[in-house]
């Protein structure tokens, strides 16, 4: 592995979330301890209802925990006000979802620049960053298109650009490939790998094992708990894997 992992960018202790649904308490998350190192790419896997999306939403402040702590960049954030969370989300956290990533009536360029402008980045700097990101993600040619004119794969690339424009300390992705064909999904995953290689911390939630297998570490969740985790490495001799696929006997 090329990157030396440093201190935790994101960590939780005893993170729990209980919902009331029709008068019944639902334990969506039942005490999760998680540490994500700077530059690490972590995938969270599990069947629907396992709590993986709830976890991601708590990490990004889209929802509040019932119990437990969250530290982002060494700073406790679970008790932040709505307003402070909004500021934090804009400046330090990048989000990519399965749907609803872009503003429909803004162009690709405007969509990507928007978060930068919202935190007071000058128009000129926002534009420079947008151009670099769109180019980096291979969608420069679509800068003036509207989201409705993009293919699914292009849409998620632009969503990645938008999520990254404020140089977030962590990128949170919730089933970002869930709506894509396998070719586009593979491209988006490969881009996330490259971003990780460039030092971006990524937490990805998915039910797709092939997508998860691109991560440095895969965390398995069941019934609101982390039940297992495993570190994955790039094969030393990937060709050896394929060479064993076809065995012709005499």
């Amino acid at each position: 592995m090329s990157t030396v992992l440093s201190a935790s960018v994101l960590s939780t202790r005893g993170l729990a979330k209980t919902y009331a649904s029709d008068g019944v308490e639902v334990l969506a998350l039942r005490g999760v301890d998680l540490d994500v190192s700077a530059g690490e790419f972590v995938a969270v896997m599990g069947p629907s209802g396992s709590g993986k999306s709830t976890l991601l939403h708590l990490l990004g402040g889209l929802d509040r925990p019932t119990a437990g702590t969250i530290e982002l960049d060494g700073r406790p954030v679970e008790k932040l006000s709505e307003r402070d969370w909004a500021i934090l989300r804009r400046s330090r956290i990048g989000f990519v979802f399965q749907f609803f990533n872009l503003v429909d009536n803004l162009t690709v360029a405007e969509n990507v620049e928007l978060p930068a402008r919202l935190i007071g980045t000058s128009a000129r700097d926002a534009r420079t960053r947008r151009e670099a990101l769109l180019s980096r993600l291979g969608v420069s040619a679509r800068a003036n298109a509207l989201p409705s004119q993009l293919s699914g794969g292009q849409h998620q690339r632009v969503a990645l650009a938008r999520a990254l424009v404020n140089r977030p300390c962590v990128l949170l992705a919730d089933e970002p490939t869930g709506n894509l064909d396998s070719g586009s999904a593979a491209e988006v995953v490969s881009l996330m790998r490259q971003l990780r290689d460039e030092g971006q911390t990524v937490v990805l939630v998915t039910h797709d094992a092939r997508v998860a297998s691109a991560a440095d570490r895969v965390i398995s969740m069941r019934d609101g708990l982390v039940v297992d985790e495993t570190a994955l490495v790039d094969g030393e001799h990937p060709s050896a894997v394929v060479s064993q696929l076809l065995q012709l006997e005499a």
Partner: protein
Amino acid sequence: MRYAFLALLAVAPAHGYELKQALEQRFGTALAPLNAGQVYTTLARLERDGLVLGADVPDDGRQKRIYELTPAGRAALETWVATPSPGTKLRDEFFLKLVFAAAGGIDSSGAVIDRQRRATLQALRDVTSVTANGNDAASLLADGTALHLEADLKWLELCEQRLNRKDTR
């Protein structure tokens, strides 16, 4: 290797080395290396069974045996192509471990499933890293393998649910 050779000989007669090269070219890195001994054993058996016919021809002062497909060979090839192949078998070794680990008090089924999941995820990572690599035959094979590994993971999830991991850990 038998049918691969029959299929190549259906295109044109060839000698052993040419057949070996043609296979290596077609499948690239997907193919486990063939040794010359295997190649000649296979051809000798095909000839013994009347599916190919060999003839020695002089080549640069040496003898080379050129093989061609016989009518019986063509019929065998056509039957082979026309017959659906048996489906891939499940990992019965894992299943035995799963069934007997807990029964024998050796390990919990949850632990057996966890280990298998970790190994399967790593295999998926390995195989996904080569799906994008050039050679069509190799990447199709790798994609097929990846789909099987994904099915294995779903099956592990099912095993876990049915065996109710809370009680078995």
